[in-house]
């Protein structure tokens, strides 16, 4: 009998398997399903210390029973003003126009003042829980009983880049993997045809820190976030250039397929050639899936209206929120929406700028919560709404009522969360009487991340990436802890 001459080569082994798979049955759905499987189970192993580790997107079991399986993060880049939206401060209102009695750290010295700036907007109790919210977020009032409002967020770093990195990667240094990359690394991809981590950017521009917001950092590049662009092609490489319409691409693929099958006839046993043919079929399928997921045309009129896609003020953000829901419905693990160009960075003209930013996001964000809830998805989907910082209780740019603004504040700010195990109708933590510093129930970005991981069933101590002698993690155990009070 002819014996295999190589006794130790994984290559040969897998080549033989392909031969058996495709040679015996011809190129068929078997090859395709093998390929699908290979895509997902690309866990080709055998890593002695000397070789690079292989990584995959195979769905992985969490360490414990998860509460959440997906997350949509609405990242309000720039820093929404907590004292005008979420954190009423009667004392600040009393001090309005008077010198602020404590110390302040400013970002912009030239326009700095120490004059207190009471919120020009009214707050009222909302929902059964009686959560106090500003008149600027009337829609949010409708879901007050569904959200957890954290009033005591703190990162302690005063500029946008570092603060974004803190919230989105856990560390203020550049180059760390983004939150979505960590989730993908830890849990794999639950979708066979869509990326696990998708980012929807603002047509008005990228957030501060640019593409780093969805970087895989030092994790392998298959954990990088995939951007859904505001213009065609919506997903680079997953969507054809604008001038290649579906019909052109179909003909192109047909012709390519013909070329490849002719070639394969010469080598009927070469499973890699067959697999590559299937890989185009799979690519086309993925492309269709992506197109289908991004097409909101199939949504009902009522849904489109709910998200405000019929109104110029909310059309963009509403569309993105709606797409986010469609993606999560189709198994995407982590979707992040960014507001661009520092939408919320109201150093000046806050009296007009803040209401505009609220109009842009309030209705669609709340629609997302309502829609997820009505579809039974909110239980397992975390919705996050918040920025990288808040704003100071004092005036910046004291040159007239229309021009005043607020400078950065990273010592105490607010954000809200819903679903996936977060406790509805609950307000967590407090800031001082002026809303500058978080004083009770402080939640750092590390605590926030530890809590998210917990809800996804991941153990922060075990979500570690090892490269050589170094380890990297999203949350170091000594840095952050799960905030159980936030959970239902």
């Amino acid at each position: 009998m002819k014996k295999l001459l190589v006794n130790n080569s994984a290559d040969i082994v897998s080549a033989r398997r392909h031969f058996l798979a495709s040679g015996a049955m011809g190129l068929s759905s078997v090859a395709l399903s093998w390929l699908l499987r290979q895509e997902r189970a690309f866990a080709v192993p055998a890593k002695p210390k000397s070789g690079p580790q292989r990584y995959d997107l195979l769905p992985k079991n969490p360490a414990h029973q998860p509460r959440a399986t997906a997350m949509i993060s609405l990242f309000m880049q720039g820093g929404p003003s907590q004292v005008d939206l979420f954190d009423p401060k009667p004392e600040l209102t009393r001090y309005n126009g008077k010198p602020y009695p404590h110390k302040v750290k400013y970002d912009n010295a030239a326009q700095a003042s120490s004059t207190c700036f009471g919120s020009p907007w009214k707050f009222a109790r909302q929902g059964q829980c009686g959560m106090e919210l500003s008149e600027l977020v009337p829609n949010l009032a409708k879901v007050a009983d569904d959200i957890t409002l954290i009033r005591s967020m703190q990162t302690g770093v005063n500029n946008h880049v570092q603060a974004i990195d803190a919230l989105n990667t856990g560390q203020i240094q550049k180059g760390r993997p983004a939150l979505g990359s960590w989730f993908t690394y830890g849990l794999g991809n639950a979708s066979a045809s869509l990326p696990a981590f998708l980012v929807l950017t603002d047509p008005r521009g990228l957030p501060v820190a640019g593409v780093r917001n969805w970087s895989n950092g030092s994790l392998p590049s298959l954990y990088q976030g995939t951007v859904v662009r505001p213009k065609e092609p919506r997903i680079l490489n997953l969507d054809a250039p604008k001038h290649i319409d579906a019909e052109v691409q179909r003909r192109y693929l047909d012709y390519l397929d013909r070329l490849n099958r002719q070639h394969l006839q010469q080598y009927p046993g070469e499973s890699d050639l067959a697999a590559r043919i299937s890989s185009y079929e799979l690519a086309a399928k993925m492309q269709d899936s992506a197109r289908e997921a991004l097409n909101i045309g199939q949504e009902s009129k009522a849904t489109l209206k709910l998200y405000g896609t019929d109104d110029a003020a909310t059309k963009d953000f509403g569309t993105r929120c709606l797409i986010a829901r469609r993606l999560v419905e189709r198994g995407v693990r982590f979707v992040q929406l960014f507001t661009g160009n520092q939408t919320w960075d109201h150093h000046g003209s806050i009296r007009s700028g803040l209401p505009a930013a609220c109009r842009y996001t309030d209705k669609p964000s709340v629609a997302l919560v309502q829609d997820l809830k009505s579809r039974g998805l909110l239980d397992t989907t975390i919705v996050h709404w918040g920025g990288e910082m808040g704003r100071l209780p004092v005036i910046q740019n004291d040159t007239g009522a229309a021009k005043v603004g607020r400078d950065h504040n990273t010592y105490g700010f607010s954000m809200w969360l819903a679903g996936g195990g977060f406790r509805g109708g609950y307000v967590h933590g407090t800031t001082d009487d002026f809303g500058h510093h978080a004083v009770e129930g402080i939640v750092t970005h590390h605590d926030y991340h530890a809590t998210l991981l917990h809800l996804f069933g991941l153990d922060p101590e075990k979500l570690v990436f090892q490269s050589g002698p170094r380890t990297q993690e999203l949350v170091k155990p000594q840095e952050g802890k799960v905030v159980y009070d936030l959970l239902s």
Partner: protein
Amino acid sequence: MRPLLLWQHTCLASQYARLAGWVCFTERAILFGLVVNCLLPLHGILASEPTRELLTFEQHIRPLFKAYCFVCHGEAGVQEGSLDVRLKRLLVQGGDSGAAIDSGNRSHSYLFERIESGEMPPGEVKMKPAEVELIGRWIDAGAPTLRTEPDTLGDSYFFTEEERNFWAFQPVQVVEVPSVTPGDRSRSPIDAFLLAHMEPAGLSFAPDADKTTLLRRACFDLVGLPPTPEQVSTFCADTSEGAYSRLLDRLLASPHYGERWGRHWLDTAGYAESEGYSPADPPRPHAYKYRDYVIRSLNDDKPMDQFIQEQLAGDEMLAPHDTAQNTPLGKELSPQQIERLTATGFLRMAADGTATGGVDQGLARNQVMADTLQIVTSTLLGITVGCAQCHDHRYDPIPQVDYYRLRAIFEPAYDWKKWRTPKQRLISLSTDADRSESARIEKEAVALEKKRKAKQQIYITQTLEKELAKIDSQVGKEARIALDTPAAKRTKEQLELLRKYPALNVTAGSLYLYDRKAADELKKMVDEIKQIRDTKPIEEFIRCLAEVPGSVPKTHLFARGDHEQPDEVVEPAALTILANGNAPTIVDNNPKLATTGRRLSYARYLTNGRHPLTARVMVNRIWMHHFGRGLVATPGDFGTLGARPTHPKLLDWLANHLVEGGWRLKRLHKLIMMSTAYRQSSAQNPEVDPVIEESYYARWKVRRLEAEVIRDAIIRLSGKLNLQMFGPAVPIREDEVGQIVVGIDTTDSADRPTGKVIPMHGQEYRRSVYITVKRSQPLAVLDTFDAPIMEPNCKRRSVSTVTPQALLLLNSPLVHSLADLFAYRVVQETDSRASPDQANPDQFSAPQANNSQANNSRAMVRAQFAWQLAYSRLPTENQLQEAVTFLDQLTLYYQEAEAQGTKNVQDKDSNQFDPARRALTSFCQALLSSNRFLYVD
């Protein structure tokens, strides 16, 4: 975390990965209902299936105990529970709990009980059931040994006869070329060796591949590019004897040979242009000189012994009086000295995080050494020594002390106690004249800097005055006094006052917030100062490894691999097992050299022609790149866990051939490529399992091109390939979605894309070997096609077939633009050629349009030319007809779309929408995405 724990973890992790591999493979096989028995076992410990043969301690049991148990029961004087499991008689003798085995009865054997219950080994990695069963069977069989065991094991590592006799540690044999029968198409000794295996199995060589196939194969193999039209016509026109041989000579003489084979060497050297280790991943702007050194050396056919010596000890090969290697050298270096210093860049390829803030220096420094040793040993010895860093190697006969002896060879250059950061290790190529010129220019810059500072102070003062004027004059007066008071001496009231008026805090850093104009003016001065400094003679550096003369640190064995637990001092030496039990000593301190001479001595030992591994490992790697796999399938591991040679005699014959031929590679390439084995067709014999066929080299194996070759080949088709050689790496940047592409970064200060594109003037079309290799930012197109990330090096590339590759070829802007350029080239070159009727059928672009309709002829000419460029051969009539049909139909579709006003993009090179041209782009893209193009057959 303590390094000790980490290293242990890593070692365990590797075992884990093996376990996982096993499980994963089996699971997948079952999933597809495949029979896998004949494929097992996959690896080392149970390499020979001992069903019927006699189980012996030495052959079957000791390797298991060595892997799982020695570290606590026998090694380095550790005998937990007073039990030593290194010999059978010690098992019988037992420990605190009595005898460990009862020969002949597993159920009375305490050792077996502990193993079977999973209590031993402790920790997460357990023996596999098959291994436990093997031990049980051995005990039941009376626990036989092969021979009388030694009375004492002594303090040092005990090499068993099995270990000493392991194939890879035996001297290279002088082997006779097998005789061949006439008519078996043997063209060279290589063929004779292969036939000797084939014939008993009833196999023989496949027929020779046709000429164009061979041409394409040889071109991709030797220069990594598809044949040019000129190459095709020259080779096809040459019908005389020796045409193929002359083709090989031409390719071997091509400067692109060095780029192609240099890239192979760079893989195993772990070539990277960034330091790695931390997310910061700082650049290595001077590393490219090593890349160029490798390319030049290969082009020059530098003997491999010299190549190895220079890379390990180039600094010790300079004349003695030149080895005062403190930077800067202070005198001009000769081109040869520069070359030899540059060669040592090989030892500077490992990730080096020691200049990065916030790292544990002890750990980071020792990691540089560990990674460097790993690169050196896996590249030159084909052995993984890393396992012996913490304890005796679990599988191979490499005692821990051997690891540190090897390390001692490199320690004088890499003294971790007197560490030098990457920057401190650079050697400047500046001349005295350069330096004095630089000093003169620096003076100028400093003078202007002084002016700028003075001006800045004036603006700060002016701004402050303006701010003070805004507040109440009395308060302002007090504020002025407060500001004039040094910060530490301000009273509480003064501090309070300044806190109340934060805008008074004007500094150099915040000036721009108050006075843009002033800030812009100052910025202009900064630019001017920079411009002045930019006129300095460019100081070039070599990234190299060189010893500090006179500094000879002691090398300690680190207990459990922990640098904070230094143990005995060790002398430099090579691996003991390779010298049959006597560690070959390496010169400790050569008095004739300013440096210790240890690396030079080691390099000469490795290349003395009698070393059992150096030449074997080298020829195996060359073979692997020619045939797609090595004679030893694991080029970086010739040890117990690695593969055994499929053709051991051929391997030894080739190793001798290399050494006897003066260690020259081009001669070896030619020998291999002239063989029948290399020239075979890839067509399958339907009666033979293709995998069996391949394993005997009874057919050429169809292979996908490597990442770099795919990119270069597509650019070649586009007509844009820039063949400029050498020099600093072509920059890379993140595009708007974060993919890494070739280009110059234009993001703003907040890292957002500005949309600005800096023209690359053809640099974007350089060959891939010249594109920046940044560990944390792999070029997307290369990454997608399995280019390695260096951690720390790549012994063998993996080849995947995954949809991101299909998606990239289908939709990426890069591929679309190159397909468009390809189409443009086809239009240009065919339109300028003769009309179809006049074409010469022998010419490369011969269009055969005789009986076609006139309006078809243009499409036909184009399709044929594109086809020839992509595949180096003419399409068959049928293929051409299909191509034309595709083009015509798509053209028609575009015409209709245009008529309906639905076309949406203009062509790049004209304002005209050209449906035929658009269709041709799709056709060209199909060609370059097709298997016929992506694979070499």
